[in-house]
């Protein structure tokens, strides 16, 4: 209905999140006038500068029309199979968190039930060794998934070279007639109903639009001017400092490395030309650290202003949730785009979904810190997940959780949350039968890495810069 449609959109923030939003809105709504205010980058806008994404990035790229092969060949991204966890929990053997099927159900019995029983009896190898992506990651190998072959049932994510990825988004946005202008936030003019009538830039310039997006980072001056409420999660998520650095290119590796520690954790993400290193901790007083205030904006969408990325949810980089949540928010905002009046019922649905998704992500990270032995405040929602899984290996997937069940289960098992008992409905599969099936499966999976090239070699064959 054109008389209620939003006609113009102004986005504060010209980083990855702002440009992703610009490209997505311009692609989905060709009649919409989209402008991006390229504010100075905020070093604390993690979604704009970290290399990590999740496997949902492919869907986002398909929506906005960003071709992955082109990105890879341009050296703007490399594929990533998963995360290698070391010393997490403390003293534990290294394990891999990868995307894709682990094992196969026996009839209606979930595979992890059978695996957990065998594991308790000391008869099962690590969980990730029952997944294609797991054996490939451990062997330093990679291929793109190939339907119809044993290399079908897994997924991968991308590691992004921020500057080049941002440039690719900028070029895409420009081709979609997004206009950009440099500027800094100077203030807002309110309408009588409380919404924003105009965005004022530092030089006095006035930008009018029907809808505004604040993608400028955690300070979120535009969103905060309307709704300053913030839900603080620092009791649950213990670390609030990030040191970022770059090292020379390291050996190409299909997995990122995560090293746990009581005082903080470190990561290494190898990219073409460099390796991004990071340390997440809680030490105050170090001049160079980026401050993170874990939590979420109470109402990410207020009147005609939507906060996206770090402006909406601030989390440390564990499992790379930052860009993932930003992309998810962009797609949700387009799917639920209200009329020009931004009726409270319509934006309430956006906020309901966004908050539920963010809280599940918080719980997912908190699970890791709990297993590291840190004294965190455990949210009730996480306590329920843990109680049910520890008792009998059951997991209930909640509406709006953007993490698949397999992602949760791999983390729970990888972190050593071993169900205490087999579920009665799974107990009918005799342990010996399950063990034999598992051995056969392991033998099949163990043979797979030999059939594909090493990660660097595969990328070279595809003319993808890897190192």
């Amino acid at each position, binding site marked *: 209905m054109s008389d209620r449609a939003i006609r113009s959109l102004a986005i504060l923030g010209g980083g990855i999140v702002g440009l992703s939003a610009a490209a997505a809105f311009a692609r989905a709504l060709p009649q919409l006038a989209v402008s991006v205010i390229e504010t100075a980058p905020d070093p604390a806008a993690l979604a704009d500068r970290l290399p990590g994404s999740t496997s949902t990035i492919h869907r986002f790229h398909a929506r906005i029309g960003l071709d992955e092969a082109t990105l890879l060949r341009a050296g703007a991204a490399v594929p990533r199979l998963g995360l290698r966890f070391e010393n997490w929990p403390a003293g534990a053997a290294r394990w891999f968190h990868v995307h894709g099927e682990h094992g196969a159900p026996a009839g209606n019995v979930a595979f992890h039930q059978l695996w957990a029983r065998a594991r308790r009896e000391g008869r099962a190898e690590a969980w990730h060794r029952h997944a294609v992506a797991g054996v490939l990651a451990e062997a330093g190998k990679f291929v793109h998934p190939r339907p119809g072959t044993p290399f079908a049932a897994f997924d991968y994510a991308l590691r992004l070279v921020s500057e080049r990825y941002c440039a690719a988004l900028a070029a895409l946005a420009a081709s979609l007639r997004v206009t950009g202008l440099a500027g800094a936030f100077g203030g807002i003019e309110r309408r009588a109903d409380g919404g924003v009538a105009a965005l004022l830039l530092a030089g006095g310039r006035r930008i009018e639009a029907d809808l505004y997006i604040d993608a400028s980072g955690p300070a979120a001056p535009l969103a905060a001017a309307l709704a300053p409420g913030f839900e603080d999660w620092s009791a649950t998520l213990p670390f609030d400092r990030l040191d970022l650095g770059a090292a020379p290119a390291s050996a190409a590796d299909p997995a990122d490395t995560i090293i746990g520690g009581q005082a903080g954790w470190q990561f290494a993400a190898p990219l073409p030309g460099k390796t991004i290193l990071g340390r997440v901790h809680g030490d105050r007083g170090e001049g160079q650290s980026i401050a993170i205030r874990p939590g979420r904006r109470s109402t990410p969408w207020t009147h005609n202003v939507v906060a996206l990325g770090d402006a909406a949810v601030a989390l440390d980089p564990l499992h790379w949730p930052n860009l993932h949540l930003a992309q998810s928010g962009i797609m949700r905002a387009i799917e639920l785009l209200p009329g020009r009046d931004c009726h409270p019922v319509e934006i309430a649905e956006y906020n309901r979904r966004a908050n539920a998704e963010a809280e599940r992500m918080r719980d997912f990270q908190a699970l890791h810190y709990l297993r590291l032995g840190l004294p965190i405040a455990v949210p009730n929602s996480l306590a329920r997940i843990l109680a049910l899984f520890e008792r009998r290996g059951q997991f209930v997937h909640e509406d709006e959780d953007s993490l698949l069940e397999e992602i949760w289960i791999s983390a729970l098992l990888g972190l050593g949350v071993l169900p205490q008992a087999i579920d009665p409905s799974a107990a009918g599969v005799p342990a010996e039968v399950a063990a034999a099936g598992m051995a*056969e499966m392991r033998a099949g999976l163990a043979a797979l890495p030999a059939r594909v090239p090493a990660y660097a070699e595969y990328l070279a064959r595809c003319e993808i810069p890897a190192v």
Partner: protein
Amino acid sequence: MRAPLFRHWRADAIIAYTRARRGGEVNQPRKRVIIVGGGTAGWMAASAIAKLLPHAVEVTLIESAEIGIVGVGEATLPHLRAFIETLGLDEAEFMAATHATWKLGIEFRDFGKPGDRYLHPFGDFGRPLHDIPFLHWWLRMHALGQGGDIADYSVANVMAAQRRFARPAEDPDALLASYGYAYQFDATRFGPFLRSFAEEQGVTRIEGRIVSVERDGATGDVAALLLESGTRIEGDLFVDCSGFRSLLLGDALGEEWEDWSHWLPCDRAMALPCAAPPGEIEPLTRATAMPAGWRWRIPLQHRVGNGYVYSSAHLSDDAASAAILAAVEGEPLADPRVLRFRAGRRKRSWSHNVVAVGLASGFLEPLESTSIYLVQVAIQQLIALFPIGGIAEVDRDAFNDQVDYEYDRIRDFLILHYHASTRDDSEFWRAVRHMAIPDSLAEKIELFRRAGRIQRYSRGLFFAPSWIAVMIGQGLVPQGWDQRVDAADPRALGQALDRLRSQIAAEVATLPGHRAALGLPA
């Protein structure tokens, strides 16, 4: 697609699994499961628990021939198919034994206003285009006075209107795969059909009337049941399928009742089977609004089930009886029979070591054929959360959360049928259409009314097509739509919709009639 490696392993494991069940491998002491009541709920629970947990249970079912069963749940939802399949029952045998017909949806007549009719189909409306739900494309054309009736884009609706039936196509991308089906059957025959299956699975049946319930002094759990004959039956887990009496959960444990009659005031049903009219059988259940409630019509192979669900505050039993006798189209096969109930549910369906299944846990009027579905949900959850060793609070809480999740959604959906109406022709309708509704429903309606948005669910009942069918069917047409569809050229869009409608009509026209599909003479 799954790798061959895994397929191979899966097949092996299933064979081994089946063998192990036959062998009855025992890892820990079997739980003594006592099922109270031998109606549909009782025999469904006995069959499923004995079949799916053979190594873990000893199942006993107590029923009394003196106590009748309610047995009005003749209309089902597509989920019952999964139940039949999981148990390994033969669909043809089941249908023959229960004189079942196919069901493609529920037709509502006169709900929004007198003269209205629409089908709530088991299936989708159209197909999404560019990841945008079909509804939005249709809404845009509808605003231009084009696109026709949204029901024309539902394969199930077109098929039901022509009284045809075929099972959905196997190719998931085919148009003829965009629907599901359920059964309409003689509920008094379903229990006995399952009984023979359950007994084959080792379920022990005891005939007798329960006179008292013995509770453990320390824990408050139910320890044993005493029968009139003097027999004492001990158990570890008691499944209350005693119907409205709620013998264990309600009477013995005193679990609190949450009353919903202020939202759903119908509290009686007058049931009356009649002879089947000649001609083709409609593959649908019909609900027709009446002055003090509504009336069901469920065509089976051999007869038609009818009943008037009404509010006793607005209609006497005698008047209801006269109304249903006047309404049926065939010769009555019995005297009208009255059933009394109350909308609501027990606060917890699982308390101590008692799990209530079906009417013993709660009641929602059969407007959307949900009774047997709710039985099924409770059984599935009980099996999924079956006690390991002792009963844990975490299992019980998870069970009760799931049951609440289902009940609340169904409650809202039922209230919608009364609320979204402009009927002004009786005191009952004036009362229900103006009553206060739950906030959760008010939000759903407003969200839909503004731009056709529907809350997403990953579990349970009533996904987007159900809300679309009932809301649009009862006159709640969204004022706006997803703005992405505005970019489409209306002429091209109109042509695409026309093509889809023609394709559905052409494909449905090739399908057999309902009687032929059932193997009955024309």
